[in-house]
């Protein structure tokens, strides 16, 4: 399973220090959520777009990633315009009243959501997972949690292969998913089998870790060095975010 689709590439955002990107991202998200009025969220949306552009990512792939969240937002577009009972109405008939405020709220939610998602892809997605986890240690995230994360991430691929094997076995025996108790039973047994496999695997992992002298954390081999470019980007980005928020 290939998860880090955006991590490989050559662009400014790919070579920046992950710590700078995490700080920039966090500040961006906080200000974007808290933004009031129409203009700041709209400009944050443009910045998100700009970041994707700066990261030189394939736009089609980015759009595909934005799709599920926007499907969720459709609910708000369908419901909000009818839920706000206030003037002025965009459309007003005895049977149908579409509130301008409802449409406005749905638009704001959509702008903010997409701005943050694009920033996620462009700022965090351009580092690989191990660099991000390493950076988390610098931000005093407990080493235990980061260690669990390392092993968790490592074994997703392994267990996914395991799952595909079990699924293939089920399909080979004529399993067709339907709305039936049999289907749910099959899925239950399938997942249970996966869980047993992971229990056994985790025993092996533990012994392998002990054999390598595990003392509760993973030592990190590559270290980060802040470059002038990192500081410049961080400073510039944060200044822009602050200015937009207050003006």
């Amino acid at each position: 399973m290939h998860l880090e689709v955006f991590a490989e590439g050559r662009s400014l955002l790919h070579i920046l220090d992950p710590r700078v990107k995490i700080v920039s991202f966090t500040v961006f998200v906080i200000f974007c959520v808290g933004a009031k009025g129409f203009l700041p969220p709209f400009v944050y949306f443009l910045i998100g777009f700009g970041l994707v552009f700066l990261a030189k990512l394939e736009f089609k792939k980015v759009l595909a990633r934005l799709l599920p969240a926007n499907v969720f937002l459709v609910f708000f577009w369908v419901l909000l315009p009818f839920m706000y009972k206030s003037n002025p109405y965009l459309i007003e008939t005895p049977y149908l009243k579409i509130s301008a405020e409802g449409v406005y709220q749905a638009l704001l939610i959509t702008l903010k959501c997409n701005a943050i998602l694009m920033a996620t892809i462009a700022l965090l997605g351009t580092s690989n997972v191990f660099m991000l986890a390493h950076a988390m240690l610098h931000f005093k995230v407990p080493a235990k949690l980061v260690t669990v994360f390392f092993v968790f991430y490592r074994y997703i691929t392994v267990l996914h292969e395991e799952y595909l094997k079990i699924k293939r076995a089920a399909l080979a025996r004529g399993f067709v998913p339907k709305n039936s108790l049999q289907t749910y039973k099959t899925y239950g047994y399938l997942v249970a089998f996966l869980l047993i496999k992971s229990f056994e695997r985790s025993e092996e992992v533990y012994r392998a870790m002990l054999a390598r002298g595990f003392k509760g954390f993973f030592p990190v081999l590559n270290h980060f060095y802040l470059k002038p470019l990192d500081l410049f980007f961080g400073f510039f980005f944060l200044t822009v975010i602050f200015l937009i928020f207050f003006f």
Partner: protein
Amino acid sequence: MHISEGVLSPPVLITGWGLTLIGLTIALKKLSHRKISEVAVLSSAFFIASLIHVPIGPSAAHLVLNGMVGILLGWNSFVAIFLGLLLQALFFQFGGFTTLGINTFNMAFPGVISYYLLKRFIRGENQKLSFISGFLAGFLSMLGAGFFTALSLYLTEKKFLILCETLIIAHIPIAVVEGLVTGFIVVYLLKIKPEVFKDEV
């Protein structure tokens, strides 16, 4: 259901992060080095399980299994669900980072409750009772998650009430399926590897 970015109000988001941090702190305090690999690999398994789509009526939904996570991992549900959602936010853009706190709590907390209420009834000698406990764990945890999600939306904006009601009703069929699948998982595990239920997490 994971709530996307930009929907919830800052107080709800902050409360969600606060509750999740408390849950994570309790979990990590209790987590011994011996258990790190177990919690981690089981979290991967539950992550994979959440990619499985199960038919429900004319539609399909992916498994969540937060009840099963709760029964097997107890407080470590917070760790498993937090990491799963983190990856989903990072790689699939499901949910998000601001909502990571509240979404984790909404799903993990009902799981922890099932751990304390229902795990004791899961015993090898009584298969029926074990299945029913598994079913209840899956059913109630899913319904609980739906309820907390609706509550988060409602606390953001009182006008979301209809949306919240729809959300809870939509969770009922999913909860039934979650319950059934969880029940079958419990029965199978008891048959093949009952020791997974014995250990204190």
